[in-house]
Each structure stands twice: as structure tokens, then as C-alpha cells.
């Protein structure tokens, strides 16, 4: 690539939208928001639509599909939290309140596309199609990630913050070198944007013009640390221009807006417009994990404020009003959610995979002589215990 290539690419996109490349890269002045908290559609004027930031409404069928995933996601979050309280699961970082983001991240992708989730993105992983008990494996305290990333085109949920964004870039790069049209969604939180790997990933994606959508769930906290201690930028989406990619802010509790923005981002990326940075404004309704005590760092009133912006209620109200959701459909959706929840309850009653000799099986393609010795030692101990 060369400077000319890169500027050509941006002139093309920006010409398409009739704006300058810089304006294409800077986020719209206001975050993209299509539904009011009460579920009513915002008018164009309310949306403050700007050139280059117009987002067509997703189709009713698409919205219904997304709503179903949303309801399932909420149920899974709450079921998992219950399982943790009952001591049947070790730890769970709930995305309660952020389910619209989770659902949109997975649904905007096509089958061959890849998703790179974090520890909080259970619902996105589920929506991508991974079986519920497989997703939950690591939260049970098992030693592996539970699912086959290649079978689902879904990376293991990453704990070391933003390291996975670089893996996402690599997956996209490999696909591009083979001439494949793979789009990758790479997720992280607001706090994670401060890590060096965030910077390196966005820069690599931009320089190599890769179809990666960096999707930041800005839920206002990194454990106890509020956004203001994390960044002084006008918005996290303003980071995009510094890499030469487009940035956009979207209401992360507005499933309609998310589907629209993520849908367009995937389209642009697949057409070769390079990476994008999407910042979704949302809120983590529960503590960081069950081990955290959020009373130490935020007011109940702040949490209460966000109850009124709940993504599930908002979407349901819209669909109800639009006549898209009759009782029968809602019933089927609820049943689906209950079925997933009961799979989880049942699964957590079953024994986890705990063959200790497995510890040596996958460190290398074959155990080294050293590992074979260590395996022997443990096998001996186990044999003696049994005897």
C-alpha cells in the first residue's frame, strides 16, 4: 500500500457520501439513535441526521430476529447470575443492560465472518451460534474455552484486554491474502481502549485496509473506574480519525440503531472501505462480576436512571406499536429463552470435564519428553490414591 492508495480509498467513500475524507472519519455530532426510550421512532430532525451518517431502518424480519436474540440474551444473563448465586457456576460477568450491543455484534455478520469477543460477551457468542453450555465452560472453572473457534468462526472470549483485537486483524489479513471476503467484528470495553494493543490493532487494520469493525461497548465503567478517568476525548469514536478510519457513536440500548449502524459498517467493510470504529453507549446494570461490589463506586440513582433506557423494553414497545409482535410470536420467543435457560440449569448440574491427565495433552501438538515425565508422576499419584 502507499499513501496514495489510502487517500484514494477515502476519497472514494467520502465522495459516495458527498463529504470530505476527514468528515467521513469523524463521528456524527450526535450519537446515532433511532428509537426513543419509550420505543417511538425518532424523527429525522430528532436524529439530527448529517450527510454521510444516514442510516436506513432495518427490515421488520431482521428486527424480529434481533429481538428474539435480545430476549434470549437477557434470560441467559439472568439465569447465569442465578446459577452463580446458587454456587453452581464460578464467576459470571453479566452483560445485563448491554444485550442489544451483544446481539447486533453477532447478527450483523454472515456465516463465514468472525467474531472476537471478550469475557463479557457471552450473549454475542451465543447469538453467533455457539451452544450454551460450550460458551459457559470457562465460567465453570474448566481449563479450556469450551468451544471450537473454527467451527463457529468465533474466537475464545478474551481476558487480557484488547489482545484479541490484534488476533482479529490477523484473521482478516489472512482472509484478505487468500482473497476471501471475511468481515471481522472485534469487541472491547471502554476501559480497554486505553491499552496499547487497542492502538496497534486499529493502526494495523487501517494500514492494511482490513475489513475489521472495532466495536466498543462503552458501558461507562472499567470495573470501578468511570469513563472520565479513562479518556479526555470528545468521544471514543473520535479516535478513529487518528488511524484513518471512520468512527461513529450509537445508542447502545437502541437495538434498531445498532442494527442499522453495524449493518452499514459491515457492508462498507466488505466493499473494501477498510476498518471502522463503532462506539456504543450503554450501561453495565450489574456489578463487574459477582465478585465485585459496585456500591463502592457508583450511586444507586445512576443505575436507576438507566433502568428507564432498557433495550429490551424499548424494542418490545416499538414492535408492539408497529404491530410486529403478537402474543403468539412473543410466546414463542419466551419459550425459546426458557429452553436455553433450562439447558443451562441442567448442564450446570452435570459434572465438568476433570480428567487431570488432560493437563498435558494440548500444551504442544505432542507432549514433550519433559511433559511425559510429569504426566507419569501425576498418573502414579492418582494410581496410588485409587489403590
Amino acid at each position, binding site marked *: 500500500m502507499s499513501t496514495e492508495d489510502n487517500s484514494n480509498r477515502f476519497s472514494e467513500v467520502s465522495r459516495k457520501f458527498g463529504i470530505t475524507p476527514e468528515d467521513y472519519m469523524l463521528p456524527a455530532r450526535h450519537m446515532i439513535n433511532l428509537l426513543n426510550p419509550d420505543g417511538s421512532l425518532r424523527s429525522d430532525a430528532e436524529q439530527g441526521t448529517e450527510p454521510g451518517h444516514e442510516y436506513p431502518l432495518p427490515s421488520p424480519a431482521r428486527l424480529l430476529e434481533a429481538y428474539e436474540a435480545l430476549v434470549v440474551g437477557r434470560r441467559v444473563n439472568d439465569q447465569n447470575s442465578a446459577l452463580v448465586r446458587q454456587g453452581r457456576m*464460578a*464467576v459470571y460477568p453479566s452483560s445485563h443492560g448491554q444485550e442489544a450491543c451483544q446481539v447486533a455484534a453477532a447478527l450483523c455478520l454472515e456465516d463465514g465472518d468472525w467474531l472476537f469477543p471478550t469475557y463479557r460477551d457471552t450473549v454475542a457468542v451465543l447469538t453467533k451460534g455457539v451452544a450454551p453450555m460450550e460458551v459457559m465452560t*470457562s*465460567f*465453570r*472453572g*474448566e*481449563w479450556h474455552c469450551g468451544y471450537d473457534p473454527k467451527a463457529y468462526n468465533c474466537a475464545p472470549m478474551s*481476558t*487480557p*484486554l484488547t489482545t484479541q483485537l490484534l488476533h482479529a486483524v490477523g484473521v482478516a489479513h489472512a482472509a484478505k491474502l487468500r482473497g476471501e471476503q471475511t468481515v471481522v467484528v472485534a469487541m472491547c470495553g471502554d*476501559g*480497554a481502549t*486505553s*491499552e*496499547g*494493543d487497542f492502538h496497534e490493532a486499529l493502526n494495523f487494520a487501517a494500514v492494511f485496509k482490513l475489513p475489521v469493525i472495532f466495536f466498543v461497548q462503552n458501558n461507562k465503567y*472499567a*470495573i*470501578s*473506574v468511570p469513563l472520565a*478517568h*479513562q*479518556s479526555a476525548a470528545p468521544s471514543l469514536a473520535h479516535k478513529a480519525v487518528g488511524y484513518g478510519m471512520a468512527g461513529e457513536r450509537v445508542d447502545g440500548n437502541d437495538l434498531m440503531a445498532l442494527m442499522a449502524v453495524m449493518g452499514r459498517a459491515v457492508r462498507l467493510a466488505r466493499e473494501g472501505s477498510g476498518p471502522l470504529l463503532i462506539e456504543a453507549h450503554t450501561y453495565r446494570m450489574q456489578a463487574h462480576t459477582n*465478585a*465485585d461490589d459496585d456500591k*463502592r*463506586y457508583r450511586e444507586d440513582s445512576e443505575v436507576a436512571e438507566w433502568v428507564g433506557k432498557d433495550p429490551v423494553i424499548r424494542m418490545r414497545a416499538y414492535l408492539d406499536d408497529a404491530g410486529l409482535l403478537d402474543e403468539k410470536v412473543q410466546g414463542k420467543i419466551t419459550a425459546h429463552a426458557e429452553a436455553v435457560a433450562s439447558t443451562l440449569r441442567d448442564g450446570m448440574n452435570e459434572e*465438568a470435564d*476433570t480428567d*487431570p491427565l*488432560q*493437563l*498435558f495433552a494440548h*500444551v504442544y501438538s505432542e507432549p*514433550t519428553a*519433559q*511433559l511425559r515425565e*510429569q504426566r507419569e508422576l*501425576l498418573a502414579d*499419584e492418582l494410581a496410588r490414591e485409587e489403590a
Partner: protein
Amino acid sequence: MSTAATSELNPNVSKATASAAAQAAKANQPVTFGKALNTALADALTVDESVVIFGEDVGTLGGVFRITDGLTDRFGSERCFDTPLAESGIVGMAVGMAMNRMRPVIEMQFDAFAYPAFEQIASHVAKMRNRTQGRLPLPMVIRIPYAGGVGGVEHHCDSSEAYYAHTPGLKVFTPSSVADAYLMLREAIDSPDPVVFFEPKKLYWSKEAVDLAQLAQDYEARRTPGSEGKARIARAGSDATLITYGPSVSTALEAASLAAEEGLSLEVVDVRSIVPFDDETVGASVRKTGRAVVIAEAQGFASVASEIVARVQERCFHSLAAPVLRVTGMDIPYPAPTLEKFHLPSAERILDAVDQLQWEA
């Protein structure tokens, strides 16, 4: 270098207010390891205005393990504060603050999350003093909660001390008792050299009856023998020596108790200061017993345990009745909760190793 760290070593110490913070702790009440660390930090903030504490969630929250609990409230958000979420940033900023007359005490939230800071630690923290012929010393402490035994998930239980111990210019301490938690952290903060301070997280909630206020007074009055470069005989014995540190000290003591029931007298040496290392205490014990097992949680290959074995056989070869053996973690990624007990040195595994020390029948 092995005397107590004192206000002489650290010119910023204001003698007037010394030990005020520790006074609150009641004499000989059981106190947790975590509280001892917390008190050490508070006392250091009290006596030395150049001490600043920062890291991820160490402010309002008081740290995910609450080791910095209450410090922001008490000392203000300029003395104890949250940073953006970036470990290289935290260490690199600490380097700069230490260059400019502060004594940063920083927290890495978990062992594996110190890795992003590795370049700053290896290329600067460890080398700035040397690079500048002693003109830019970097008095700073990098606190790292480490090791397993708490059912932590991946990336939360690494024993990473070897990476730092292998890096010249760093000192590496790890306490295993409540009193040491207090004293060694005070000493680390007062050290003119950078210290990587490893806190065995499974001990955070362990309790001992320790009078922290008295410890503080003694420390500040220079009545406490220093721990830098000084191992500690955690249990005296005569038949073989268990050499260990940090989270494995309690396991070694357990093994020694079990052995005692069978009439075998095991000495347990708690290394405490990995760098600098106390060859004298360790060597004297092994020369006395003639047999040794080195125990550590970290994977064994190219580890601190390897180093101890190498040193002991170099220095005590003719006293040894058997090779020096190791009981360490396996050479595998740290396994998650359901399987960690198979990975960690256990009293049984230690006793098996002791059995192999070629005892005459």
C-alpha cells in the same frame, strides 16, 4: 544492604509522624495478611510524602483485593489514585515519577496483567540506575498479587517471579507471613532500588496475631532486622531442608508436620528475598541436613527453583547425600480451578520427593 530500611536510606521520610497509621491496629489481635499490607501502605504514605500509590481500581474501590482500601479517603486522590487501564502506562509513568523525586508504589491487578508492562520493567525499571551511573535511581515498588490456590480463572494465577528474578537490576521479594507482609513491604518502599513485590494472593485472608503498631514502631526505630537478602528459618529441623517461598511456605510447613509424625525432622527455609538471594542461610541449612528439596508453585523449567537447586549443589556438593530435588508446578499453562490441585506442589508430593532423597534403609 541487609540492615532495616530506614529513613537514612530514604531521605523523604518525615520522622515526626512516623508510625501514626499503624497505631490504630490493636495489639495482638488476629490480623490478615491483606490488612498488614494495607497498613504498611498507609504508614508509608504517612511518614513519607514522596510515596504515591496508583494502578487500576486502587482508588475509590480500594483495589480488587482491597489492599489499598481507604487510602484515597484518608490521604486524598493525589496520593492514591486510579489510572487509565494500561499497565505499560502505569509502570512507565511510575518510572518518570521516580525520576522526579517520588516513590511510586504501583499495583498490577493480577500477575498475567503485568506482562504488557514487561518492556518498561526489563528495559527501564531494571536499568535506569545503571544507565545513568547511579544518577537516576528508581525507588519504586511494583506490587503483583500472584500464584494460585484461590480458584482463579485463566491469567489470574501465574507465578511469574522468574521473569523478574532473571532481570538484573530488579529486587524481588515475597512475604509468607503477616509480619513479613508488613515489614517487607515497608522495606521495599524504603529501598533505593526498584522492588517487584510478589503477594501470594491465597494468603490475603490468612490471619495471625501480630501487633502491627509495635512492628511499625520497631521498624521505624530501626530495631527490626532487615529481610532484604535474608532468608528465614520457618521451622527448624535436622534431617533434610525444604527450601521455598511465598505461597508454598505453608505447604512445606504442612509437609514438615506430617513428616514429624513419622519421626523425620525437616527444616523449612523461607527464602523471602529471591533477589538478592541469601546463600548463607540456605547453604548452612543444607550443609547441616545434607539433603534438600526446593519447592515453588511456578512451572519448574528455567525457574527460581532451578536457580536454587543450581546454587545449592554448587555450594554444598560435598555435604549432599542425594541430589537436590524439586517440587514445582508442572510445565503447563496454569490450569483453571477444577484442576489446579493436581498442578500445585502438595504436602504429599513434597513428602514423596523427600522419600527419594536416598535414605539408608
